[in-house]
Every structure is written in C-alpha cells, then in structure tokens.
C-alpha cells in the first residue's frame, strides 16, 4: 500500500479528514470522548467548588494567585488555539509545510504555557501551598494539574503527529489525526477558560 493510494489517485479531497468512513468514525468517536472529558472536568470542578474555602492554615487563594501571570498564560493558550485553527485551514488547502509550521507554533506556545504553570506551582509550594496542606490545595492541584497533564499530552501527541506527517505525508489516514488533535487542543483551551474564571478570578473575589 503506497502513499499514492492513500491520496486517492493523487487527488486529496478538500476535506481529507472526512473522506473515509474510518476518518468520519474517528472524528465522531473523538467528539464522544470529549463528552466524557467534559464530565471528567465537570466533576473535578464540582469537587473544587465544594472544597475551595477549606484553606485551614494554608495560604488563601487571594493571597496566592498572581493574576498578571495567569492572564499571560491564558493569552498564550488562546493564541495557541488560534495557531491550530490556521493549521487546520492549511490542511484543507493541502499546504503541508504551512500546516507543519502552524502545528510547531501550537506546541511551542503549549510548552511555554506549561513552563509558566510549573513555575507557578513551584512558587506556591515554596509559599507553603502543597497537595497535602488543605482540602483547597488538594482539589486545586488535582483540577489544575489534570488540565496541565492534558496540555502535556497534547504537546507530545501533536509532536508525534508532525513526525508522522514528515514520514507519510498528508493522506486520508493522517489528516483525521491532525484534525482530531486540533479539536482536542481547543477543548483544553476551553477548559482553561473555565479554570481561569472559577479558580483564579473567583479566588480573587472570594
């Protein structure tokens, strides 16, 4: 089976991610998976909201959070989402090089978001805000940490997909993977918007 066949006789269709039943299954299945992920984060949010006032002797959210830095992290993640939109547009125009450039920008922004988060967690720990400090701290690290782990997984995944594009090119097999990873990236972006609101902004106003 050559790459030639995967491109349907050299003509990649306009939306190569939806050209085959396998591709359509993958996209539908992934949306369903995101439904499950929504419930997962919903439960983490519920636990956090139930426990967020239980700070005991540990630092309070008002004391801990530095909004400018968190705002910068938010902007970085939002822009990375935009970059992955451009990557999918390039995919639809079959501009492989352009697509890879946008994907690389996406993961670079993702990495800088992760760097900021690690720095942030590090600072908190030095201020006496550890996983074991209080119910607030446990639920904080679990919720924000789950999101961070999702970003890290996304970076790794998109990185591997770039390598696969270099190896196999853009075909009706690789296109759905790129498309689905972009949906995933938007999803973790949306989750972050909720974290920014519920954890950080609500933490500042009590």
């Amino acid at each position, binding site marked *: 089976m050559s790459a030639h066949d995967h491109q349907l006789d050299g003509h990649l269709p306009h939306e190569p991610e939806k050209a085959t039943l396998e591709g359509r299954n993958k996209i539908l299945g992934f949306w*369903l998976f995101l439904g499950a992920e929504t419930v997962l984060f919903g439960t983490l949010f519920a636990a956090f909201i139930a426990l967020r006032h239980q700070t005991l002797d540990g630092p309070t959210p008002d004391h801990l959070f530095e909004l400018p830095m968190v705002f910068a992290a938010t902007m970085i993640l939002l822009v990375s989402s935009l970059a992955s939109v451009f990557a999918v547009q390039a995919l639809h125009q079959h501009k492989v090089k352009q697509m890879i450039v946008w994907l690389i920008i996406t993961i670079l922004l993702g990495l800088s978001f992760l760097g900021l988060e690690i720095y942030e967690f590090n600072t908190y720990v030095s201020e006496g805000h550890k996983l074991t400090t209080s119910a607030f701290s446990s639920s904080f690290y679990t919720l924000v940490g789950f999101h961070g782990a999702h970003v890290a997984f996304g970076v790794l995944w998109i990185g591997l997909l770039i390598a696969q594009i270099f190896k196999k090119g853009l075909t009706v097999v690789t296109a759905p993977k790129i498309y689905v990873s972009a949906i995933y990236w938007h999803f973790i972006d949306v989750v972050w918007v909720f974290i920014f609101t519920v954890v950080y902004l609500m933490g500042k106003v009590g």
Partner: protein
Amino acid sequence: MAAHAHTVKRYRGLMDWLTTVDHKKIGILYLIAGGLFFLVGGLEAILIRIQLIKPMNNFVGADTFNQLITMHGTTMIFLAAMPMLFALMNAVIPLQIGARDVAFPFLNSLGFWTFFAGGVLLNISWFAGDIPDAGWTSYVPLAGPTYGGGHGVDYYLMGLQIAGIGTLIGGINFMATIINMRAPGMSFMRMPMFTWTIFITSALIVFAFPVLTVGLVALTFDRLFQANFFETGNGGNAVLWEHIFWVFGHPEVYILILPAFGVISEVISTFSRKRLFGYSSMVFATVLIAFLGFMVWAHHMFTTGLGPVANGLFSIATMLIAVPTGVKIFNWLFTLWGGSISFTSASLFAIGFIPTFVMGGVTGVMLAVAPADFQYHDTYFVVAHFHYVIVGGLIFGIFSGLHYWWPKMFGRMLNEKLGKATFWTFFIGFHLTFFIQHFLGLIGMPRRVWTYLPGQGFDTMNAVSTVGAFLMGIGTIIFVVNVIVSAANKKPVADDPWEDGRSLEWSIPSPPPEYNFKQLPLVRSYDAWWNEKQKRQRRNAAGRAGRTDPYAFAIDPSARHEHRIVRSGAGLHVRPSGRCHRRARRHLWQHVLPLRVRRSRLPHRA
C-alpha cells in the same frame, strides 16, 4: 480503495484469540471472562449465605465476611454483569445494524484487555492477603487512609480505574458504531430495540464513568499522597464521596438494566411472533429513563441529612421513573397478548423477568418515599430490592439473551431441556433467596452485618434464604453443563434457527463469516428480516396460484408455521415503499441478500 487495506499477519489458535479484533470473537472473550468472574462472585455469595445460615455462626468470621460482601458486589457489577452485557453487544450489535465490524476494532480489543487486567488486579488481592473490605460503595472515612489501613482498598481503586477505562472505550465505540455504521435504509426508528437500548446504555457509560474516574482518583490521592478530599480533619468532605459515587452509581444501575430491557423486547417479540407493541413509546421510555437516571442519585442518601427539600425533590424524581418503566412493562404484556407464544428457555427467562422485575420496581417506589426509607435504609429490604432488579432483571435478561443468541454466537443450539431446568432451578432459587429478605429487612435485620443473635425471628428466614442460594448455584451449574453438552454436539444450525427471527442477524449464517455480510443489506422496514420473509411467503403463495414468480426464494413451503406468519402478518406494520422503486428494489434485494434457508439446514426443534 480502502484506506487501511494492507496485509495483516494472520495468527491461528491461541495467538489468534489473544490478538483478535473481530467483534464476534471479542464478544466470546467477554463472555468467557465475565462468566468466570460470575462464578467467582457467585461462590462469594454462597459463602456469605453459609455464614448467615444460622445465628452466631462462625463459618468465615467477621473480617472475611466484610471482604466477601465487598468483593461480591464489586465483582458482580463491574466484572460479571457489565462484561456479559458487552459480550452480547459485541456479538449482536454489528449484525443487527448490518455492519461488517464496529467503528474501532482495535480499541474494542484494547477495551476488553484493560477490563480483564483490572479484574485480575482486583482479584489478586485474595492472594496478596490485603483484600478490599469497605463495601462496593467504598464509603469514606471507612475506605479512607485513617480507617482503611493496609492496601485492600487500593486494589479496589486501581482495579476499577483500569477496568473502567476499558468500559469507557467500549461505550464510545458502540455509540460511534451505531451512529455511523448502520446499513443503508436503517433509520434510527428502524433500529431493533436491543440496538436502541445499547445505544442509550453506551451514552450513559460515556457520561457516568468519568465521574467514577474522578472519585477513584481523589480517593487514591487521599490514600497514597495524603491529599485531603475526604479527610474532614483537614477540611475535606466525606459526603462529597457519596455524591460523586452515586452520581456515577445511579446511572450505572440503568447501564445494567437497559440492555436487559432490550434483550427482553427482542425475545418476547420473537417468541410471540408479533411486532413489538408500542415500539416508538419503548424508544421514548428508554431515553426518558436514561435522562431521569442522572437526576435521582441522592435517593441513596436520604439518611445522610441533606434536608427535606432535597429529599422531597429526589423522592419525586425517583418515583417519576416508574412511569416510563411501566410503559415498558405494558408494552411487553401487550406484545404477548394474542401472540402465538412458544415457551423456549429464552422466552421462559423473558416471561419470568416481567413479574420479577415488577416486584423490584414496586419496592423501588417504596424506597423512594424518603420518610419510609429511614425505616428501610441499610436493612435486608434494600438487599432484596436491588437483587430483584439486578438478578431478577439483568441476570434473567442475560440468561434469556444467551439462550436466544447462543446459536448465532457459536453455531450450536443449547439443549432446551437443560435450558428449562436452568430456568426453573434458578427462578425458584432466586425467589426463595430474596423474597423472604424483604420481611427480614422489615422486621429489622441490618445488611452488611456478619452474624446475628438467636431469637429475633431471623433464624428460619435466613436458613430458607441460604437454601435458595444453593438452588441458584445448581441452576448455574446446569447452565455450564448445557454449554459443555452443546459444544460436544456437532450438529450445525440454520441461519434463522428459531424460524421466527425478526432482525438482520438471523439473515446470515450461524456463526457469521468474518465479514458478516457479503453485501450490505438494504433495510426497508423495522423488523427488516421478518418483513422480507413475509414478502417471500406472499410471492410463494402467488406462485402456487398458477403465476410464475421470478422472486421466489427457497423457503420450505411446508414450513411449520407458514400459515401463522401470513395470518399474524395482517397485524404487522409494513411500510409501503414507493411504487416506482418497487421493482428495482426487489431486484436489488435478490442480489443484496442471497439468503436461502435450505430445507436440510432447518433445525430439528425439541
């Protein structure tokens, strides 16, 4: 050119079973694994009942008793009932919707092996000596680090986490399969009822299991990393665990029972030789039950102290579920009404299901009355109630489905005499075990207590209950014997061995070839296969009247109940296709479904 068409290395024998991605083989793997765990859970149940056979008994002791009830509940729900449902789903759903496989064959295999690994991990605890003992609900603080010492509960947390991933994968897979891979013409409202219930169950899995995932993660963090989710001393909240567990746990019981509703609908319709009464109301009731199933979790927590407003609302929401469930019960009764019923093992289990499940439903409404629940809570009344819905509902449904689809799965008939013996011993044993437990509960025997003092009126009823449990064990052994006997029997079965099959799985050989359908079928109505058979009957009748019929199929014209099919057919809903397309479509059918029932392959019925 198919996108994934490349040569795959073919294995034989054991390696083939370990590496298979064929949904029919994965279904059999689920059945074997789920069946084994069912025997383990059943053995645990028998040990529990021996411990309780007389007052002040010291057969297993208090610690082992706690471990037994925890492992019995966890094993039966997550490792026996759900995998056996997945067995039926895998064996039947792609065939019923006219598909060649599921949407994600590899993930299907991955889901099975993660479930199996999780189940094995949980049961390794028996050999490691640290056994979960905080109940299948694993309430904190009993399961927390302070009171749940040792690693018993950790086996529960890790085992369920891993098995849960497998279940979630399966749920996503079957939703995607049913949405995307139905045969041409099979609209949602032409799907067989079993397919509908599996679709809804899969949706419940997708939206309920992640809640359990989070609960298990939080408790794991509490136990292993000294987090404080449920540690009240450090600001945690023990009631939060109850909420998280039941927000998952209540939809879970509908995940279990809805597929049984689907099996019962298929079996009753087939063996009454009638279209399922009220198909659309059945679909609507299923969807409504699933929706309400997410709205009632706090009825498990009436005595927790949420207050009268919460208790009142959850009480009313719970009683509402009785309405769509009642719709289903009456639909089954009206399907039976006036039908030409044959009492096969499968239909006995289905018919036995109806009154049994109604009893479980009635005690459910009793428990939904919050003030009354303060009396019933944590007594044997509750134990009787949920065994009536889970054993009397789900396990009867699974037995019914297994007897019904066995020839399709394995190409061998189960022995009807042994099947009926299974039914009667299991049915009588079940009611003997659990009916009396209602009264044990009402006079005050608490659940989850390892022994009791004599002279409280508990003695005789407990002894009777234990005898019943042994009878259920004998019923299960008869079933296992039946499986072995049928495996030794080399007689092949026909494509449509019950002769009354209604849905597409009966239009292909038993067992089906690896690709299921030579050509994808064109579906023209609900009960697609039944209606095609009927059309052939009419054509044959026309042929006998002297006209030649180019579309005559080789159905034996002297088939036993030909007359009945034609007669009851008058009451069937046949969707007329557009006239101008008729001829072309007929022509298509002839090629699309080369479904000959040869005289020599008709089964020999007992």
